[in-house]
């Protein structure tokens, strides 16, 4: 930490908890959202969705709908498939998802017919007039059934998309519902299991859930006066949307402009392409502006969090874990979406942040006839930590070891190899565990409890690795008056990226945050960025804007050095001036520098930079890689719960969320991300679940699907930022968006076992499950059964 203190002592903006730069437009409700943008003659969309999970489309009769006054077009997938030069399918890993169903439907909710009409109500009325005949086909809903050779096939063949470098190894597969299989092999697990004192074998599951961004997906597309495709969309990946639309429609990239204003929450739901291909095809056909805003019910039928089943087997010898074998099954639904990336990136972490000499991992991404699953805050890692850090706790208890000490002993230290063989750096997992234990007063235990309300404490730890390789580009433009514009494709979706990036640029150029304007994503002007997701923006875009600003600063320093006849290395940028270190009265304002350099104030000074961390090759058979990730973000959560043994209800009394974010650019915003991600995941832990019956979603509305409200806030809560600086992060920063989400569920389950001695292995942890487990433990009947 000594280096950090020395480096940070020089900083004036980075490390300060400055206020959000987007607060005013947001608190007044004036923030621009896609839903507020209207174009003359704009059409509205409604979509007819499949009532069946798997069926052949025999006939579509749309004549009556087309005849309805106010309807401009009624479109089917078969018609899209016949459009010359158009790929009827899209997707980030496999091009498996039809814009509208072609020949068959693959889940109940699959879009079949789209109507564009003068208003939403007319479009919905038209849908009532469309007749579709289906022939139902056998379907498979359970991920463990879907991997069997006898299971009905969701797709006959798998066509890789080739859109991202990290998915280049995804292969065309056939005649199986397994679309991706990741393998990790290190040491000799069979020998370790044979030599073990004890072997623990458990299966854990977590259900499908929905992101529930308060703003549902919305996309507006129109052709401009040059017939260029203009797209306004609530997307976390504007650069990808442009690439995908170019590939799908064969339109040159410079004839597509994708813009993203503020978006009302994403959490992974708004990644890759969602509504954009459909709205584009409707705009191309009608030659009118077209906007499609999902209803809340449609949101539930568009994207989900992966249901995951993990079988985990662990060997213990002499009180230490010697081997771990994990089989992870990702239910990616009817279309792979980004499932293969999740199966890979999360798969390789599924043995935990621990020193385990023998590890075997199989991670399978599996098609089923359910709503597609994709990224969800944590990118699959919360699901694997749910398994491994529940089981780690069970082992500690079985061995009579203290759960904190049992984790601290094998937790990896700086420079030790992860299960992938990659040496870890900036890996504050031990510190996170210690801080969590300290904050919840771990060693302090209350008196023996005898009543019907029992208290217990639980802790869990885990780690996520950032997506690598990935790319962020940025351009910094300095104006003659000492203000700057920053061109970045990072999407401000609530995480505070505009503020963070503004702080980094302000620090580098010696400006105030108020002097830096972050331009919102616009593919006409803002450079490529892989995605706004995965806790990658502070590091990747932070580095890009910092490097671009450093180039601008170098040009300023060069001009000042020439004018003042000093060494450029002796100059620093501060308070809107460039001055001599130690003699700060000797220097020039930015205006003076512009006059000296250009002879005019009427110009700008711009520079571009790209941050592009690379990964080393990963062996496809063993998952070993010298470098599988650019950085790690360790997490620990501690909770105290009170379980009512009569009702099964769990009250979370205390919640401590700890994360290693690297150097905190904005400490309060890091604390906020850690705490809020944890509170969101309390809901996912205790009650969120999309319930399906034979492939039919039965709770797809906010009347039936509950998310955490203010009443679900624990009585006492706190987050702790652990700052282990990263050598290559901007000012040592890493990321913070997902960390708080990672370890909540096992911490709660571990606390429940501590309180009442029962172990829940299937999320969410409902009162019913606790009552059943208590009844099983006591040999009594569940009330009401």
């Amino acid at each position, binding site marked *: 930490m000594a280096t950090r203190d020395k480096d940070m002592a020089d900083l004036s903006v980075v490390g300060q908890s400055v206020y959000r730069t987007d607060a005013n437009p947001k608190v007044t409700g004036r923030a621009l959202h896609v*839903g507020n943008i209207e174009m003359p003659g704009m059409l509205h969309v409604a979509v007819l969705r499949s009532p069946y999970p798997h069926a052949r489309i025999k006939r579509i009769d749309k004549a009556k709908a087309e005849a309805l006054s106010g309807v401009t077009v009624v479109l089917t997938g078969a018609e899209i498939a016949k459009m010359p030069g158009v790929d009827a399918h899209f997707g980030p890993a496999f091009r498996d998802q039809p814009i509208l169903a072609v020949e068959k439907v693959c889940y109940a909710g699959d879009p079949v017919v789209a109507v564009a009409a003068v208003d939403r109500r007319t479009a919905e009325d038209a849908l009532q007039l469309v007749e579709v005949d289906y022939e139902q086909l056998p379907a498979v809903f359970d991920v463990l059934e879907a991997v069997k050779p006898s299971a009905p096939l969701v797709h006959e063949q798998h066509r890789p998309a080739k859109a991202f470098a990290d998915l280049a190894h995804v292969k065309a597969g056939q005649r199986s519902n397994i679309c991706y299989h990741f393998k990790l092999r290190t040491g000799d697990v069979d020998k370790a299991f044979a030599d073990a004192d004890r072997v623990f074998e458990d299966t854990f599951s977590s259900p499908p859930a929905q992101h*529930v961004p*308060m703003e549902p997906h919305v996309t507006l597309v129109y052709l401009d006066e040059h017939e260029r495709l203009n797209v306004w969309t609530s997307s976390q990946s504007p650069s990808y949307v442009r690439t995908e639309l170019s590939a799908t429609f064969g339109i040159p990239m410079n004839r597509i402009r994708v813009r993203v204003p503020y978006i009302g*929450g994403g959490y992974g739901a708004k990644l890759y392409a969602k509504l954009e291909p459909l709205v584009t095809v409707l705009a191309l056909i009608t030659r009118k502006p077209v906007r499609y805003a999902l209803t809340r019910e449609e949101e539930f039928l568009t994207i989900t969090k992966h249901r995951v089943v993990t079988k985990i087997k662990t060997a213990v010898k002499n009180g230490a874990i010697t081997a771990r074998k994990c089989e992870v099954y990702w239910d990616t639904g009817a279309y792979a979406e980004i499932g293969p990336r999740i199966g890979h990136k999360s798969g390789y972490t599924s043995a935990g942040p621990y020193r385990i000499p023998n590890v075997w991992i199989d991670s399978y991404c599996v098609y089923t006839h359910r709503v597609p699953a994709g990224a969800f805050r944590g990118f699959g890692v919360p699901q694997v930590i749910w398994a491994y850090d529940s089981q780690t706790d069970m082992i500690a208890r079985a061995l009579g070891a203290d759960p904190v000490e049992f984790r601290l002993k094998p937790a990896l230290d700086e420079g030790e190899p992860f299960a992938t063989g990659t040496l870890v750096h900036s890996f504050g997992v031990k510190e996170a565990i210690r801080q969590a234990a300290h904050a919840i007063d771990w060693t302090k235990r209350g008196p023996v409890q005898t009543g019907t309300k029992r208290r217990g404490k639980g802790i869990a730890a885990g780690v996520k690795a950032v997506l690598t390789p990935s790319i962020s580009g940025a351009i910094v433009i300095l104006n003659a008056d000492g203000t700057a514009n920053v061109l970045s494709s990072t999407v401000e979706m609530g995480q505070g990226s505009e503020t963070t990036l503004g702080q980094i640029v302000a620090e580098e150029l010696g400006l105030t945050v108020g002097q830096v304007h972050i331009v919102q994503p616009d593919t006409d002007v803002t450079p490529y960025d892989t995605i706004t997701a995965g806790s990658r923006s502070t590091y990747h875009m932070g580095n890009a804007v910092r490097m671009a600003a450093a180039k601008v600063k170098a040009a300023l320093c060069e001009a000042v050095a020439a004018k003042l006849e000093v060494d450029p290395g002796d100059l620093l940028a501060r308070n809107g001036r460039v001055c001599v270190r130690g003699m700060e009265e000797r220097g020039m304002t930015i205006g003076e520098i512009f006059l000296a350099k250009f002879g005019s104030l009427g110009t700008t000074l711009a520079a571009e930079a790209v941050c592009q961390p690379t990964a080393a090759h990963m062996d496809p058979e063993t998952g070993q890689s010298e470098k599988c990730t650019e950085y790690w973000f360790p997490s620990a959560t501690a909770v105290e719960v009170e379980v009512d043994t009569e009702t099964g209800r769990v009250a979370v009394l205390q919640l401590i969320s700890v994360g290693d974010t690297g150097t905190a650019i904005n400490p309060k915003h890091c604390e*906020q991300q850690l705490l809020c991600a944890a509170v*969101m995941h309390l809901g996912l832990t205790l009650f969120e679940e999309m319930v399906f019956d034979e492939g039919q979603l039965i709770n797809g*509305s906010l009347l039936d699907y509950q998310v955490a409200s203010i009443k679900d806030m624990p009585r006492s809560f706190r987050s702790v930022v652990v700052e282990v600086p990263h050598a290559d992060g901007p000012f040592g920063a890493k990321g913070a968006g997902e960390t708080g989400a990672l370890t909540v569920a096992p911490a709660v389950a571990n606390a429940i076992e501590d309180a009442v001695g029962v172990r829940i292995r299937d999320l969410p942890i409902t009162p019913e499950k606790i009552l059943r487990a208590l009844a099983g433990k006591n040999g009594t009947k569940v009330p009401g059964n």
Partner: protein
Amino acid sequence: MKREITLRVNDRDETLVIEDADTLLEVLRDRLKLWSVRESCGVGACGSCTVLLDGRPVSACLLLAVRSTGREITTLEGLGDGQALHPIQEAFVSERALQCAYCTPGFVLTVKALLDKNPNPSDDEIREYLSGNLCRCAGYADILRAVHLAREKQSRAPVQRR
């Protein structure tokens, strides 16, 4: 059926021809372009479309526009004097009680109604009153602090009618 109605919105009379089936949410957004009123769940369960009706918070998605005549309708655009931030808004900014902020207008108006009714609410009363407003960024800790700060600000300042 179409009919002409007059709505009293943010201290102005707005006369419009609407369909009987039009919700207040549709009229406020699509016709009056009051973009702070946000559509989210469509079933009155999330509070994103909260407006004040005679000072009480209601979900505009559940209310027919024809049933809203003769009432004082307040949206976030009508809060305060239209220039400076209202003390509740100031409190949300200084407690950082907004992230994606799609829910913020609904929260600010609900807090306004709460503090008008109960200038000194307890933590439990705040939790109860705000339980119909969802924030998926889960910034509830910040919102709780913001309500307390707004309460302090308002108890110091002269009473503001709007």
